[in-house]
């Protein structure tokens, strides 16, 4: 029963979502209650998720794990943010102390992680181009044309600049092929949900 009810509900939602996509009137009616329902589920799911996070780090500190200092930092950050939001800002969403944490601690840290990308692009490119295969050579060749075309000088191509042709003809053709395959995959997945064959979202087999 614990599996059948979610499967039946999901099958019902597949029918509802398809019909609502083609009916603006139905969509206007259903969109808000369904979205509200989803937010309520998410709010409920936050509790076990946060509890699991706290349990994980507390257990690590108790076991005196070699990296338990990071667990201490994570827990301190979690409780300090909660304290600022609930006590200092008195439940005010986006209050001054909460805003300070976001602007001066959280956002710089986020940008720092994002900045890793620049270094990782270089190391990934090095690995890809080092592989001595036909595919790697073609990739290198295409990358050099696109880089030179965008940064220095557009090279002549079959119809206009070569880098533009590479991006709008062969690359676009492959992307469309992938998108088409994904669309068919999603339709098949929806049919499997409708028939109760897809159970990845239920949790139980």
């Amino acid at each position, binding site marked *: 029963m614990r599996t059948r009810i979610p499967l*039946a509900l999901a099958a019902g939602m597949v029918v509802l979502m398809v019909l609502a996509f083609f009916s603006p009137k139905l969509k206007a009616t259903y969109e808000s209650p369904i979205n509200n329902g989803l937010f309520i589920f998410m709010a409920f799911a936050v509790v076990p998720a*946060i509890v699991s996070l706290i349990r994980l780090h507390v257990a690590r500190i108790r076991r005196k794990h070699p990296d338990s200092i990071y667990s201490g930092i994570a827990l301190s950050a979690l409780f300090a943010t909660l304290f600022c939001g609930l006590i200092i800002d008195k439940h005010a969403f986006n209050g001054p102390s909460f805003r300070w944490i976001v602007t001066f601690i*959280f956002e710089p*840290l986020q940008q720092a992680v994002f900045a890793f990308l620049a270094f990782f692009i270089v190391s990934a*490119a090095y*690995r890809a181009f080092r592989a001595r295969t036909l595919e790697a050579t073609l990739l290198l060749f295409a990358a050099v044309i696109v880089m030179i075309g965008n940064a220095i000088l557009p090279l002549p191509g079959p119809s206009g600049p070569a880098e533009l042709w590479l991006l709008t003809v062969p690359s676009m053709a492959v992307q469309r092929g992938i998108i088409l395959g994904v669309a068919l995959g999603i339709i098949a997945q929806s049919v499997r949900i409708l028939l*109760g*064959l897809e159970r*990845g979202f239920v*949790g139980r087999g």
Partner: protein
Amino acid sequence: MIRRTSLGGLIAALLVLLPLAVQAQEASVTTWIVEGEAWVFIGILVMGGLAAVGIFYAKAGHTISARAMPAVEAAEDGIGRAVEMGRPVVFVPGVQGITKAGTIAGLSILRLVAEKCAEVGARLIVPCRDTIVTSIARETVEDAYKQAGRHEEYRSEDVFFISRRQLAYTAGVNGVLEREHPATVFLQGEFSAESLIFGETGNRAGAMLIAGTDKETQLPFFITTCDHTLIGEELYAAGAAISKDVLTLGSLRGVDLARLVVGAIIVLGIVLEIARLGWIRTMLGG
């Protein structure tokens, strides 16, 4: 089972749809059916019908085989490698919520990976970004260990939530990869800018990387950094291919049929365009 679930689904749809339809009478929007989308609706019905035909074809007892996917074959080796090395397996179920098709496909693969890990005694770590996905992943992994008769080996603290924020989650997963030194990392689901960061950090940790995503913009990063990649629709097919479930494999046959139909329409469209007859383009709203 199929009949019962479909019937249950239809009843559930009716129960939800009827009150909404009554309520919809009073909605400020006046259009019941959107204009110009008829061909999309027909297309969805035909493609969905073909997928269903494949399933019922398999149900009738016909043998269905899926083409070999190197990434799927490598999954088993990767889990075996983890046991041999005494290191864990990390599974990242994408960065999107449960409403995304790619996440559902990723969770189907998680189920099969968890079953295999439980069977051979490999430790499985699942860091999650979405709270609902965390709950589902925890139940999936626990159930897989229970089914394998190894419930005592299931560690609830190994399936955990990190953060809803994309880059905070990325940093958290990086930390897991750097500290735990996993033997194998599965990156299955929908990914964004963090795909390259995960791939490179996994490489630095010396892990075998098996990725899969339906985001065409992230595929080059996975192909460049990972050992094996499920490309686009392969993400949706992998669950069926690993499980070897006949009915699920049947849906893949249905997708093949749908692909043939789409291919035929494209060829017909090209021929007609060359002959300066643009009625397919006009009909599809081009």
